[in-house]
């Protein structure tokens, strides 16, 4: 290849690199005064990972703790659409929602500053059901059997353990003695639970329940909620619960006198209608009921709803969201049509907004649980970038000193090549849309040290050839030729390892592998091709230079 072509290729690569790295305008969703707006921004097109720019990563999977899901893969596919809709409505700049493996959804939300709320929006099943409260006193009839079952099972599970519900899960962590009056502190201790008026007798279970104001409604002291939940979760108890009925907690608590109670409802298991017919949901504030969410159903839903409610006039209808009864079930005065509302029971307007959002975006076909969560603050990400860049600069300086000190003029050529190496690698990362992560940044800094290896191999060869008395031109030719097999073999085997890392790594490690691969390619190009060209230019420029080489 002629020298002209070589120079042209090098400059072509430089131009391409600058083009790849040149700040460009892009339309992005950016947050301004707390609101997401579309805006054109100008920035270097190098994508930063969540660990560098801050944000949140979630891995969601099907929650089978409340019953097995038959076709998980299909369920995940459907859930994926719902999650994507919700994230789009939630408003995040450049979110990522994708399926990983067969049964997992990965959600990445850059720049999120309220992780708890974001997680809520993603995870809430928003499964809306309308169920009629039990009129047959089925639970009361079953109470003796439940008590007997508990007695048989010799239940000693009085202390709270992380049970089925999220609230008791928190309670399980709460120390028993520091339980404060806040709602989440529903920790339990059997010794302290005095019977507060019984429903069906002195049994372990029945003594914790009090008859409510409507059929199928019971009051349970807040301190006993954990215990009751636990009892209900026991397989022996589940076996004797009335068939065709389900037991659900209310979403909020009520105060009677100086005691706090949570309501327990026994409902017909088959819902009269579910939220799948919902077309719209809007938050609102009603003077009498506080924050509410108003919803509208489509024609088919409205028809069914009218028919079903017509059949159940004078019955009580529980609005059940994610297995929690919202508010107190209203009595059905007459058939209801397309519109309805959900009372939020003292929660703030944001909660109503979020509920409306998830209802609009559709309910999750299966409950999801967060299997894996990473959230990194934006300032921590910035610190990491600063530290990484500092380390990079120091590494470059040290490597330059070593190369110049040892190889002098040839070392200078290697340093020039190193500058191109850094440019090419960054450009390759930007060009392929790779994501730069913190381990990737570390890998890049490390590669600065390793990248000169090819140069070192070549220079040592040239020295050997010169020592054998070869002319400068021949020594350079021979040096490159002999070093080639070592360079190729060592780089290819490293590249293969990097490919394996890419295939089996996740997140940050994958970013590391990409950086490694880009670095290997760039270092081979610069060490073999670019430095060779530099030598050729130097040999062409001056005749007398050929008699000695500073190396």
């Amino acid at each position, binding site marked *: 290849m002629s020298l002209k072509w070589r120079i042209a290729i090098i400059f072509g690569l430089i131009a391409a690199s600058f083009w790849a790295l040149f700040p460009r305008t892009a339309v992005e969703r950016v947050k301004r005064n707390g609101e997401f707006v579309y805006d054109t921004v100008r920035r270097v097109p190098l994508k930063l990972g969540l660990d560098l720019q801050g944000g949140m990563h979630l891995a969601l*999977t099907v*929650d089978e*703790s409340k019953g097995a899901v038959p076709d998980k893969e299909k369920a995940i596919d459907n859930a994926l659409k719902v999650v994507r809709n919700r994230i789009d409505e939630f408003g995040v700049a450049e979110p990522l929602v994708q399926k990983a493996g067969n049964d997992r959804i990965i959600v990445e939300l850059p720049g999120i500053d309220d992780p*708890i709320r974001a*997680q809520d929006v993603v995870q809430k099943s928003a499964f809306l059901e309308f169920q009629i409260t039990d009129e047959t006193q089925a639970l009361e009839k079953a109470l003796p059997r439940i008590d007997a079952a508990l007695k048989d099972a010799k239940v000693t599970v009085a202390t709270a353990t*992380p049970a089925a519900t*999220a609230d008791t*899960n928190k309670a*399980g*962590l*709460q120390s028993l003695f520091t339980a404060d009056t806040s709602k989440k502190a529903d920790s339990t201790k059997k010794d302290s639970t005095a019977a507060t008026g019984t429903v069906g007798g002195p049994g372990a279970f029945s003594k914790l329940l009090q008859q409510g104001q409507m059929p199928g409604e019971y009051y349970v002291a807040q301190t006993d909620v954990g215990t009751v939940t636990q009892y209900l979760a026991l397989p022996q108890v589940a076996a004797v619960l009335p068939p065709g009925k389900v037991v659900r907690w209310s979403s909020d608590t009520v105060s009677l006198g100086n005691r706090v109670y949570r309501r327990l409802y026994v409902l017909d298991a088959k819902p009269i209608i579910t939220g799948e017919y919902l077309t719209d949901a809007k938050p609102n504030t009603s003077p009498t009921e506080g924050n509410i969410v108003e919803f509208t159903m489509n024609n088919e839903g409205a028809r069914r709803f009218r028919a079903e409610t017509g059949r159940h006039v004078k019955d009580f209808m529980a609005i059940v969201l994610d297995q929690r009864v919202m508010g107190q079930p209203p009595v059905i005065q007459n058939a209801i049509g397309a519109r309805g509302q959900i009372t939020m029971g003292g929660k703030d307007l944001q909660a109503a907004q979020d509920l409306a959002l998830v209802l609009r975006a559709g309910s999750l076909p299966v409950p999801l649980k*967060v*299997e*894996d*969560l*990473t*959230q990194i*603050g934006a300032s921590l990400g910035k*610190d*990491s970038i600063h*530290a*990484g860049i*500092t*380390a990079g600069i120091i590494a470059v300086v*040290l*490597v330059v000193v*070593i190369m110049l000190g*040892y190889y*002098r003029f040839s070392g200078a050529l290697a340093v020039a090549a190193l500058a191109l190496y850094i440019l090419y690698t960054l450009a390759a990362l930007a060009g392929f849309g790779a994501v730069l992560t913190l*381990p990737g940044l*570390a*890998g890049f*800094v*490390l590669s600065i*040290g*390793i990248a*000169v*290896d090819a140069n070192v*191999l070549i220079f*040592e060869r040239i*020295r*050997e050839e010169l020592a054998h008395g070869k002319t400068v031109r021949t020594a350079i030719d021979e040096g490159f030729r*002999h070093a080639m*097999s*070592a360079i190729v*073999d*060592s780089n290819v*085997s*490293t590249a*293969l*390892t990097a490919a*394996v*890392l890419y*295939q*089996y790594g*996740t*997140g*940050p490690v994958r970013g590391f592998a990409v950086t*490694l691969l880009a670095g290997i390619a760039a270092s081979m190009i610069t060490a073999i091709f670019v430095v060779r060209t530099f030598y050729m230019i130097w040999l062409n420029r001056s005749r007398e230079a050929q008699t000695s080489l500073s*190396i």
Partner: protein
Amino acid sequence: MLRILHDTNYDFIRWWKVMAAITVAFILLGLGSLAVKPPNYSIEFTGGTLMQLTFTQPPDVGEIRSALDDAGIHGAEIQQFGTNRDFTVRAQDPKQVAAQASGASNIANVIEGVLKKKFGEDGVKVGRREAVGPRVGQELKRGAIIAILLSFLITLVYLSIRFEWRFAAAAVIATSHDVFTTIAFLKLMHLEISLTVVAGLLTVLGYSLNDTIIIFDRVRENLRKGRKETLYETLNRSINETLPRSVLTHATTFAATLALLLFAGEVIRPFAWVMAFGIVTGTFSSMYVAAPVLLWIERKWPRKTGARQSSSTATPTSRTRRSPATATR
């Protein structure tokens, strides 16, 4: 011309027994210590919750602990992480992992809540929170092991094609040696095994393999020259000839590693430690594992052509000429 270790003629391999004893002792020390106490896996592997916190005032660790204990989070590991205002809290004992399985972020939220209560809403800032379910950890562990084994397999195939199976086997055995020494190093340094450290380990393997390949490349070339010398001598000669390159490359790599170790921050430091050790073990294994193993393989399974000569490679008495063809097959 500045020259380091030029035209040396050290008999490196002579010391392989001593070196083998040293490295076996080191590995046994590490593995023995592993048997006594399992390694520190990061929450990525065990599952659990990690919070990185920045306080406005240097807090008292005892206070953090008592706040956590009050919330029922016992046995959490609280560690200073950088300055005296930065701390990490790790809740990763199996009980908490199981509790978390039903909703991974709950514990993180509880921790944030109690600490904000104790140190004030602005007194503590959460820089990073990670919550990992137990299953993810299992998969990562399997993924890491598959990645290492697969990279060995691919290396074996590639080197068998480019060199021959004896070289490939020796290189892979030398690299496996590095896996063990690095694990021993991690254990003895009390470094936590995280994903980043695994990436570091794989980088070390790649680096060590590079080093071995550079020497073997020289061996391949010297064998082709058909000098009248034994493989033992050829190996020694090749190590000596590549010595200046080794010194230079290790120097520049170490310079970059040092920069990472000192300036890249706490998250990267374990990775940098692994790499720093990797430079040592990689160099060591190329000379004292790869070379002796190659000699051993050569004696045990001599090359077909010229088998008689090769069988005596380890004894310097027989000086036989090796044809170039045998070396490249």
